[in-house]
C-alpha cells in the first residue's frame, strides 16, 4: 500500500454532553472534516474504559480519540479528571507496546467548540498520515 | 458604463481567480460600505470599494476601469470589515486577472516598472551589477555563511540617487556599532511585494524563488530590511514558498539595540519631528512603537503625532504598486500628509519606508515647502545623531 493512499481510521469516544454535541455543532454549522472518524457516544469521558481503547486498536484503528468536557464543564463534575488518570495510565502501557503517542489522543472539546472538534480530527488525520498505519492493523493485513 | 443590461460573469476564468483569492470571506460581504467609508481615497475622490467587492462576488468586475488599479492596499478597510473580507487579496486577484489573462489594460507606468522588475530585477531598470554600488566606499562586506545578519536595503535605496542615503545611513550605523553584517551578491532581486499586489503573480513567484534560493545557498538566517514591503513579503509570503529565514525591520533592529544600550544617539537634533506610520509596518504588521522609541532616543528631538496616527494612519499613496503609477495632483495622499505635518508645525517628516520617503519628498517639493520641511528616514536621523 502506498503511504500516500493511506487513510487512517479513527475511533473517537466522545462524551454526550460536550464533545458529541460539539461534533453535532460542527454538523449543524457544516464545518467539514475528513471522514476518517467514527464516533462512539459515551455519557462521560470518565466512562471510557481502557479496554475500549485497546479493543479499538485490536480492531485495527490507527488512532483513538478520547474527548469530553473541559474540566469545569463536566456534567458529572469531575469526569475529565478521571478520564485523564485513565489515559495517563493507559499511555504508559501503550508505550511499552511500542505504540506511537499520537495514536491515542485526549482532548477537551466543549459544546460550543464545533470548529475545534473539526480541527482536532483534521490534525489527527494529518498526523496519522505521516506516521502511517497502526502496527496492529498490519497484523490484520498480514493475516488476511 | 453602457446603458445595456450588464451580463454577469462575462469572464468565467477571471471570476474564478477572484473568488478563489477572496475565498470564503468574499462571499460573506454584506455590503455595509464600511470599507468605502474608511478608504483614504474618498478623501480625494470617490472610490467605492464596496461596489468592487460586490462586482467581485457576482463576477461582474469592470476590468477596464481605472478603479482596478486604485487600491493602495493600506489595509484600513480590512482591519474594520465586519465580515472579515480580505479586500486586498480581492484587489490583487482582479489585477492579476487583468495582467495575466489580458483582459482590460495595465497602466503604462506600471507596465514599464513591471518589465524592469521582470527583466533586471529592479523597478528602476538599473543594471543588476550596480545593486551594491551605493556601498562602494563604506567597506560593507559581502555576505558569507556565518555572517550574523544580511542587510537588504530594497531596490529604491539601492539605486535611487536621492534615497541611497537611507541604505548608506544603515551601513554607517552598522559600521559604527561593529555589527557583523553583509550585503548579498548582485544576484538579489526586488522582493516582489508590490508587483505581486499589482497583479504580476508570475513575476513575484520567480523573484521570490530567486531570492529564496539565493538566501538559502548563502546560509542566510537573519535579514534586516529597510522597506516594510520587503519585510511583509519576507515574513508572510516567502515562508509559503520555502523561505526559511528570520526577517527584522530596521526599526525593530535599532529599537532593540537601543533597549540593550548598545545604540545611544548622542548628538542633538533640535527639530520638531512628525512620524508617519507606513501601512506595511503599522496596520499590516502592528509595529508602531519601535520607530517612535528610536526617535525618542535622539536628544532634543521633539516628537509630534499626526491627528490620525498609528492604527488610523493615512497611507502615503505608494502601496499596492501605486508607487509606479501616476497620481494626479489633488489626489495625492502625501500632499494631505505634508499639509497635516505643516499644521502640526513639524520641521521633519520621519518615515520608515522608501515609498513614503519618495512620495513625501515629491509632495514637499511640488507644494513648495522644501524650505521649511524635510523628509527623512528614521535611519538617516539616527546616523545624523551618532
Amino acid at each position, binding site marked *: 500500500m502506498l503511504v500516500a493512499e493511506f487513510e487512517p481510521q479513527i475511533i473517537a469516544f466522545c462524551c454526550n454532553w460536550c464533545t458529541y454535541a460539539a461534533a453535532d455543532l460542527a454538523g449543524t454549522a457544516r464545518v467539514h472534516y475528513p471522514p476518517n472518524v467514527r464516533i462512539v457516544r459515551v455519557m462521560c469521558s470518565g466512562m471510557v*474504559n*481502557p*479496554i475500549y481503547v*485497546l*479493543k479499538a*486498536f*485490536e480492531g485495527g484503528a490507527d488512532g483513538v480519540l478520547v474527548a469530553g468536557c473541559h474540566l469545569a464543564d463536566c456534567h458529572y463534575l469531575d469526569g475529565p479528571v478521571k478520564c485523564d488518570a485513565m489515559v495517563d*495510565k493507559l499511555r*504508559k*502501557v501503550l*508505550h*511499552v*507496546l*511500542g*505504540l506511537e503517542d499520537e495514536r491515542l489522543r485526549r482532548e477537551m472539546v466543549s459544546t460550543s467548540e464545533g470548529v475545534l472538534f473539526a480541527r482536532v480530527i483534521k490534525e489527527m488525520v494529518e498526523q496519522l498520515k505521516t506516521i502511517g498505519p497502526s*502496527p*496492529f492493523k*498490519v*497484523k490484520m493485513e*498480514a493475516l488476511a | 458604463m453602457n446603458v445595456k443590461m450588464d451580463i454577469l460573469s462575462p469572464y468565467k476564468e477571471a471570476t474564478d481567480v477572484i473568488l478563489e483569492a477572496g475565498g470564503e470571506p468574499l462571499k460573506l460581504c454584506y455590503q455595509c460600505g464600511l470599507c468605502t467609508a474608511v478608504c483614504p481615497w474618498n478623501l480625494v475622490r470617490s472610490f467605492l470599494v464596496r461596489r468592487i467587492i460586490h462586482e467581485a462576488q457576482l463576477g461582474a468586475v469592470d476590468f477596464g476601469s481605472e478603479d482596478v488599479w486604485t487600491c493602495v492596499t493600506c489595509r484600513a478597510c480590512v482591519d474594520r470589515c465586519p465580515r472579515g473580507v480580505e479586500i486586498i487579496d480581492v484587489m490583487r486577484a482582479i489585477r492579476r486577472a487583468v495582467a495575466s489573462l489580458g483582459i482590460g489594460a495595465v497602466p503604462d507606468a506600471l507596465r514599464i516598472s513591471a518589465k524592469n522588475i521582470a527583466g533586471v530585477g529592479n523597478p528602476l531598470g538599473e543594471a543588476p551589477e550596480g545593486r551594491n554600488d551605493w556601498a562602494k566606499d563604506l567597506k560593507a562586506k559581502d555576505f558569507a555563511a556565518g555572517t550574523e545578519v544580511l542587510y537588504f536595503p530594497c531596490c529604491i535605496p539601492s539605486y535611487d540617487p536621492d534615497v541611497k542615503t537611507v541604505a548608506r545611513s544603515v551601513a554607517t550605523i552598522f559600521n559604527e556599532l561593529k555589527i557583523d553584517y553583509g550585503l548579498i551578491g548582485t544576484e538579489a532581486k526586488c522582493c516582489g511585494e508590490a508587483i505581486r499586489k499589482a497583479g504580476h503573480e508570475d513575476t513575484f513567484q520567480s523573484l521570490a524563488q530567486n531570492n529564496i534560493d539565493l538566501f538559502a545557498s548563502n546560509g542566510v538566517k537573519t535579514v534586516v530590511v529597510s522597506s516594510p514591503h520587503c519585510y511583509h513579503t519576507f515574513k508572510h509570503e516567502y515562508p509559503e514558498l520555502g523561505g526559511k529565514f528570520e526577517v527584522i525591520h530596521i526599526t525593530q533592529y535599532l529599537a532593540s539595540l537601543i533597549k540593550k544600550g548598545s545604540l545611544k544617539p548622542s548628538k542633538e537634533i533640535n527639530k520638531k519631528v512628525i512620524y508617519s506610520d507606513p501601512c506595511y509596518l503599522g496596520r499590516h504588521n502592528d509595529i508602531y512603537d519601535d520607530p517612535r522609541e528610536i526617535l525618542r532616543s535622539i536628544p532634543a528631538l521633539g516628537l509630534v503625532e499626526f491627528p490620525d496616527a498609528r492604527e488610523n494612519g493615512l497611507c502615503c499613496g505608494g502601496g499596492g504598486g501605486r508607487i509606479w503609477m501616476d497620481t494626479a495632483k489633488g489626489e495625492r495622499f502625501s500632499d494631505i500628509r505634508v499639509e497635516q505635518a505643516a499644521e502640526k508645525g513639524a520641521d521633519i517628516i520621519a518615515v520608515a519606508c522608501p515609498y513614503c520617503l519618495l512620495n513625501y519628498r515629491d509632495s514637499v517639493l511640488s507644494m513648495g515647502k522644501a524650505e521649511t520641511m524635510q523628509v527623512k528616514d528614521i535611519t538617516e536621523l539616527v546616523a545624523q545623531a551618532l
Partner: protein
Amino acid sequence: MNLEDIIQETKTYYCLECGKCTSVCPVARYDTSFSPRMMIENALLGFEDELVLDKELFSCLTCYTCQSECPSDVDFPVFVRKARAIAQGRGQRGICAHSGQLQSLARLMTSPTIKQKRLEWLSQEYRVSEKSDVLLWVGCAPYFEPIFEDIELSALGITKASLKILNSLGIEPKLLPNERCCGHDALWTGDIETFRKLAEHNAAQIKEAGVKKIVFTCPEGYRTFKLDYPNHVDLGCEVQHISELLAEKIGRNPDVLGKLKEIKKKVTYQDPCRLGRHLGVYDAPRRVLESIPGIELVEMKHSGLESICCGTSAFTNCDSCSNKLRSERLSEAVATGAEMLITACPKCQTHFRCAMVDKGEEHRPTPKIEIMDLANLVANAIGEGGKSSK
C-alpha cells in the same frame, strides 16, 4: 476440537463420579454451584451447552488440587482448558478482571510488526550480555508495572532482583527486546489462536537468540514453556525457574552468592500452583529460603501439595469466591505468626496485594501481611549494593 476429542484426550471417561474432585476443590468450597464432577458428567452426557455456556466454566482455577486427589487421574484442568476453547468459539470468555485489558494486551502482542519498548527500565546497574547463552524471561512485568502501580506491585522489581541474583551468580543473561507474552493466560482461557501465535513469535526469537537455557521468574511462563510450547513449537533449549537454578547452585556451593546478609524474619511460603502441583517444584524455593541467614520458615496449615491457590487464574472470574479464597489464604499466612509471606510467582503477589487494598468489612478486614517474591528476598540478602529492589 469437539467435546468427544476432549474426553478422549483427557481420559475423562475414566471418571468414577466419586465427587472427590468437587470435595477438594477450593472454588466449590465457596461457590456451591461449582462442581467439577458435574462438569465432567455434563461432558460425558454430551451436554455441551450446559458445560460451555455456563460461566462457571471459567471459575476453575486449574490449580490441580482435584487432579492430585483423583483416583482415576482425570486431568480436569486440561479438560477445562479445552472446554474453554470450545466456549471461546461460541463467544464465551468468562468475566474478565480489569475489563479484559490483560487479555487484550496479549492479543495485541500477536502483531508481528510491533516494536515494544519493554526494556526501558534496564539500567547500568545490571549486567546483561548479547552473547550469553542464558536468557532471562522478562514476561509481562513491563506491562504489569503501570497497570498495577496502584496496588504497589512492582513486577519489574522481581525481574530486577532476579537479574541481580543472576549477576551475583556470575551470569550475565541475555534479554529479548521484543519478547511476547508467553500466552499462558490465552491458553488457559481457551484462546488457542492467540496462544499459538505468541508461542510461534517467541519460539522464533529464542531460536534466533541461540540460547541454551531460559530462566523464569514466573511459574506461569515456566510451565507454559516447559509443558505447553512443546505441543506447538520447538524451542531447543532448557528451561528453569530461578528458584531451581538457585537451589541447584547453592546445593553445589553454599557461598555461591557470597556472604548473605542476615535477615531476621519469620516467613511463610506460598506454593504457586504452577510451580507446585503443575511442575512439582516444592523443595527448591524452600531450600533457597533456608539458605538465607536469619530466615525462619514456617509452613501454613495447607502447604506443598495441599497448598491453596491465590484465588484467580488468567484474570478471569475474579469474583467473591476468589476473594474469599484469598482472604482464607492470607488468614492462614497470618496465623503462622510469620512476618512475611513469600511467594515465587508475580501473579500470586498481584492477587494477594489486590485483596489487601480492598476496603474489606468494618469488623472483619482483609488480613494484612507483608508480601514479597522469593527473588526479592534473596536479592535483599545479597551483600554489596544490597539495595532492596522493591
